[in-house]
């Protein structure tokens, strides 16, 4: 009886941790499946049921036609969209934090609205614009759309960082006879950099993984998510799982490395 009570007590004390770990498992289960099935040798065209182990797809990740082409288009779009959205978004963030001006409320709403809008609405309205203007759908229309929806997220990330910055640092720089440009480059920008980096990283992830808006603005251009979407109809090659697994591993390693570097730096300072 005592054993049961203590077991129950233990359970009750750790209930939150157990529930949290179960949720974490729910979040990670699909990634486990994606990884396991990257070693599958499916019978038909679809890679949904386990057959037997094979590393063929890992040896030849570009073995499916158009797959790596679509990957490179996605990477190119994500790169330029990140660059564009980060540049435009950082400027807006500085203006919002540092200056009082008219129409501030309107600007704030214009930044907030794209984040509070279902993607399909933005996608559909952008398509009407492009159709009305007779624009050729493809790389450029995708890029325009991606910069548009990444912009607000960059502004939010950079704004948070710049807001928490001590303005006296800049004053100090100016007291030490630094010109406005020098102050900006040697004081303001380095302090704002983590916010800008976070915004850029977010923009890259959002752009690279975007499907809904891309689907409306792509025309016949096939990005990586578009390729996966198409293959869900035609048959899913194992190589998709290989690339999904590789992206997951690279991301985890990248973040862990960044954390390790951060820790070492912290120690040095101390």
């Amino acid at each position, binding site marked *: 009886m005592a054993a049961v009570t203590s077991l129950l007590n233990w359970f009750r004390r750790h209930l939150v*941790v157990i*529930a*949290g*770990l179960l*949720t*974490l498992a*729910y*979040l*990670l*289960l*699909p*990634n486990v*499946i*994606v990884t396991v099935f990257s070693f599958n040798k499916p019978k038909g065209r679809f890679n*949904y049921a386990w057959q037997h182990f094979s590393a063929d797809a890992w040896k030849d990740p570009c073995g499916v036609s158009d797959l790596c082409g679509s990957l490179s288009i996605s990477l190119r779009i994500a790169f330029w969209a990140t660059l564009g959205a980060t540049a*435009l*978004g950082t*400027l*807006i963030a*500085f*203006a919002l934090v*540092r*200056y*009082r*001006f008219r129409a501030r409320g309107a*600007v*704030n709403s*214009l*930044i907030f609205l*794209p984040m*509070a*809008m*279902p993607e*399909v*609405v*933005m996608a*559909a*309205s*952008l*398509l009407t*614009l492009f159709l*009305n203007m007779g624009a050729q759908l493809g790389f450029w229309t995708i890029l325009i759309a991606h*910069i*548009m929806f990444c912009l*607000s997220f960059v502004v939010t990330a950079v704004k948070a960082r710049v807001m928490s910055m001590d*303005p*006296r640092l800049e004053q100090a720089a100016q007291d030490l006879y630094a010109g406005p440009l020098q102050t900006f480059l040697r004081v303001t920008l380095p302090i704002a950099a983590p916010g800008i980096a976070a915004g850029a990283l977010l923009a890259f992830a959002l752009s690279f*993984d975007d499907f*809904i808006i891309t689907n*409306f603005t792509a025309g016949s251009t096939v990005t*990586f*998510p578009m390729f*996966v979407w198409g293959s*869900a109809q035609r048959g*899913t090659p194992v190589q998709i799982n290989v690339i999904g697994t590789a992206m*997951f591993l*690279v*991301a*985890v390693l990248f*973040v862990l490395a960044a954390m390790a570097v951060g820790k070492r730096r912290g120690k040095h300072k101390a």
Partner: protein
Amino acid sequence: MTTLTEAPPPLDPTAPDRKPPRARGRWTPYWLLLPGILWLLVFFALPMVYQASTSVQTGSLEEGYKVTWHFATYWDALSAYWPQFVRSVAYAAAATVLCLLLGYPLAYMIAFRAGRWRNLIMVLVIAPFFTSFLIRTLAWKTILADGGPVVGALNTLHVLDVTGWLGWTSGDRVLATPLAVVCGLTYNFLPFMVLPLYTSLERIDARLHEAAGDLYARPWTTFRKVTFPLSMPGVVSGTLLTFIPASGDYVNADLLGSTDTRMIGNVIQTQFLRVLDYPTAAALSFILMAAILIAVTLYIRKSGTEDLV
């Protein structure tokens, strides 16, 4: 609570000692804003205008469309597709509630109980983002496959009898049913719930918990009267970040559902990209936008966290 250690308030340029007066200063903010705001005006606001205009046009693809103020399109679209609207709201609401129920313990655990594992768990919450969400959604096809272990277990436990009676599943299948779609939506938007919850939980001063305990509050009372109210900003932004994208989503309904689980996003997508009935598609998209905006405004007003925006 810890006002002294907090960052100083943002710079107020009107204060005379803060910034040396500069000749071009008055126009600087507008130059900084110009490119980004122009981009948003041309590629976000202007398309909305075009869409509104398209929704009241009549015509055909061959002969072209003209604005005829044909508001009947709205009525026709609503009467033809109201089930999909209702379904979208129901699925998105169910997914949001599930995300809150599943995400809260995880966020709470990371904030208060994870100790030195905190950073690693945060990485694990964010890392799935880097695998394309379409690939991960397709993985659910394997997990929920007919006759697979998950469906088998649910069958043995007679869960499928209950969900079948409720109309969430049919027979001994989970795929191609509302349950699969809601499960996919919940999965896809769970991180958007966990992250804001974590941010607001992490800000809570741990001493408040001790204080509640000192005042003889049981753990559950502490949670109900101290922790949960203080995490409200996270709950509000988490539910918004989950509900809004879920209500317009068409990927989960398409990959994991059937023709009986089509949501309004599916209809807009089909009308726009396959049927090419632009006025109907534009009207539907406009209704969805208006409904979301009204709901979000009311919700933010009601929950009293307008500083969220």
